[in-house]
């Protein structure tokens, strides 16, 4: 991770679209009066969804909406790596290269992406359609290696399947998110290798003697209660 700062080239202005503004107002309304600064992260996210990245005018606009100092919004925007501070491609490909994914072959995935897209890490393709970035642990280690495209995780990828995925995106398709090998969530890949035998039913027990003893005690208690007091 390198030092995060605002991009040099910035648009002149920013304004939330009416739909985004409506969503923003709903979020701000969740917090008590005077605490609207709490909405800064969701609002930055909305701005990023609208523009693709967080621009300087967006930071200033959000600061104005939430009555915060612009530096306070900038602090948040630079803290979270999920906020893109410079323009990214329409398809933003993030490859997890943290330990689990690396052990499972993320180097090959990186290689596939670089070859397929013809760009390096942190770069954007000239047509603006693709960009490539490194992702710190995506928290899906059980399905490593993982790449994140947009909001979706594509899991269990390797050199070949990454190529296919990117080809699909190049054709304008959106492949189904999740494991590309078809396993269900984080269920074991392939056949289950544990707990494969049939479960043993519980041992059979004879409760009739216990039941008879219980009935007898109950009847005796009832007879005792019914008998006249001596």
């Amino acid at each position, binding site marked *: 991770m390198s030092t*995060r700062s605002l991009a040099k080239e910035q648009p002149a202005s920013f304004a939330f679209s009416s739909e985004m503004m409506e969503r923003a107002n709903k979020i701000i309304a969740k917090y008590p009066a005077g605490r609207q600064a709490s909405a800064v992260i969701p609002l930055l996210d909305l701005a990023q969804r609208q523009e693709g990245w967080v621009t300087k005018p967006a930071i200033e606009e959000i600061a104005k909406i939430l009555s915060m*100092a612009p*530096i306070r919004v*900038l602090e948040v925007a630079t803290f979270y790596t999920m906020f893109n501070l410079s323009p990214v491609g329409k398809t933003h490909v993030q490859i997890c290269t943290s330990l689990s994914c690396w052990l499972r072959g993320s180097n090959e995935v990186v290689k596939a992406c670089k070859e397929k897209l013809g760009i390096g890490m942190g770069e954007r393709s000239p047509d603006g359609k693709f960009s490539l970035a490194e992702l710190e642990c995506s928290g899906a280690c059980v399905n490593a290696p993982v790449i994140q495209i947009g909001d979706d995780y594509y899991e269990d990828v390797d050199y070949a399947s990454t190529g296919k995925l990117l080809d699909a995106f190049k054709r304008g398709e959106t492949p189904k998110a999740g494991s590309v090998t078809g396993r269900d969530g984080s269920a074991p890949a392939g056949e289950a290798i544990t707990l494969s035998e049939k479960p043993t039913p519980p041992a059979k027990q004879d409760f009739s003697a216990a039941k008879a003893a219980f009935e007898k005690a109950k009847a005796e208690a009832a007879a005792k209660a019914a008998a006249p007091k001596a």
Partner: protein
Amino acid sequence: MPKLTIDGIAVEVPPNTTILQAAESVGVEIPRFCYHDRLSIAGNCRMCLVDVEKSPKPVASCAMPVGEGMVVHTKSDRANKARGGVMEFLLINHPLDCPICDQGGECDLQDQAMAFGADRGRYHENKRAVKDKYMGPVVETVMTRCIHCTRCVRFATEVAGVPQLGATGRGEDMEITTYLEGALSSELSGNVVDLCPVGALTSKPYAFNARPWELRKTESIDVMDAVGTNIRVDARGRVVLRVLPRVHEDVNEEWLADKSRHACDGLRYQRLDQPYIRKGGKLQSASWDEAFAVIVGKVRGMSGAKFAAIAGDTVDAEAILALKDLATALGSNNIDCRQDGAALDANVRASYIFNSTIAGIEQADALLIVGANPRKEAPVLNARIRKRYLKGNFPICVIGDVGDLTYKYESLGANPDVLSQIAGGSHPVANALKNAKKPMIIVGMAALTRADGAAILATAKAVADNCGLIKDGWNGFNVLHTAAARVGGLDVGFVPNAGGKDTRGILDGASKGEIDVVYLLGADEIDTAKLGKAFVIYQGHHGDRGAHRADVILPGAAYTEKDGTYVNTEGRVQRGLRAVFPPGDAREDWTIIRALSEKLGKTLPYDNLAQVRARMAFVNPGFAAVDKIQPAAWKAFGIAGSISPTGFDYPVKNYYMTDPISRASRTMAQCTEEFVLAGQQKTGTHG
């Protein structure tokens, strides 16, 4: 009241005290970087770790409230080892460039590394490097040295009220910066340099000038505004290199305004270091005897009514008293220390001082500001208002157009006549003041220097009387002065008695030819064009407006070059000490007047400072009580009249240049360029 034991000392402290504060109260010092008394608690440097019995790990004492029966060890092996570890972590990325660092010799990190650091590091990786940031003309940055204590961020946000500093990025990439690297636009920005525990933020004008052990430190009083900030003047040889604040809880706490701190380089330029006489329209250097001879030739035998004297804004009370005695001896009653023409009544002390006191602001619960801009006129006092504001329940109303004061206020418009409505009780603010327990009004010079100043003063008094500002043990009527010498001058009585001329009268008289000789004692803020054909004697330390018009110049001493008494806006008598000698032939001001009086045959009855001060105490016993405020009796003052609806014309238009010293200062010129003239088109002769 929890009881606890710290290093074997039993101590009982109020609840919610932190371990660090409790330790401090019994004299146990705990090292720290991020913790600061006057800032919120951050708890991020971890240097203050202490060992608490029954606690599984060391505890950050700055953020840990005390508990009943706690047993704290601040010097145990575990505490020392923990601090050693923290120090080692801090030094992973700190460049050990002490030999070229300005903080060297007064650096918290250096000192504490001596106590807790190892003699060598165990980390062989490259240290991180951080790009230096621009923070304005007075703060130099070497951000690689930063240890991220965030004291500066908290100061800017909390005390100064300009949330422009912040920490971007995270982890190893965290950087302290202003938003988009703009200058820190606060009048208190220099204080972040004092707060910085390392050499990340240092003073730009003082960069690479001296080491702290080379400096001679003299305790003095600041004269750039009327707050009377306690300062320490650091000088090497005959040069004042820097000015730092001293702690005075009732005046400045430990803050110092930028002008007071950084205008000291003005003491080196444009100095008057020998007497001058105007011959054939040109000022020519002369000896003291020649200069005195010219004055004696002009003044001796002249009618006293044709002599006038005006005292300036930064003069010490000793010189003002000597000049008053001289004018009296010459039979003149045309004396005035209010060169801005403020309608202040010297007979009623309560009418011209800040009665609530600066520390008293913290007890107030409602404030009305009339014709004052505390942010520009007294930044340190403004910080006190902001401190009170942050505690909440402090409605602030302002009459006049003052812009951003670093706190929210209700603007009552620019028309000063609103004050009459408040006095009459017809304005809602009147009720707000009446309902408050300790309401305050601050009247500024913008209100009092107008033609209707006396009427505004009278109306402000009516507000004080009618809205319950005057109570047992509380006087909510305050005048905020802009000049350090003003209250001292009024206390000495440097104002005309009945029949005498005040500043306006003197200038009118001079232009009409009724006044022949005008003695300007450091008075530069008057309209010198109005002095007409009068013979002008200028006594002062800088070749400024007064000296340009003068016929004879007597070189005096600046505030760092004399032992002087100053009375601040609250009426607190304070004494500054001489840090360096005046340059060349210049002399301490009262001695010049004393020498001249002898030549004029009216020898003043004092030969040394002790005798002058005895005379001062005789004229006004208050002068004998140093660092005390004499409570002033509440009497009638002001002249009722109508208030004109025009808005206030504020006296401090450029905060960075208000007196001869700051006008001569290069640092202040840079600040003016950065903050006041920003956006102005640069011309061919620019830099």
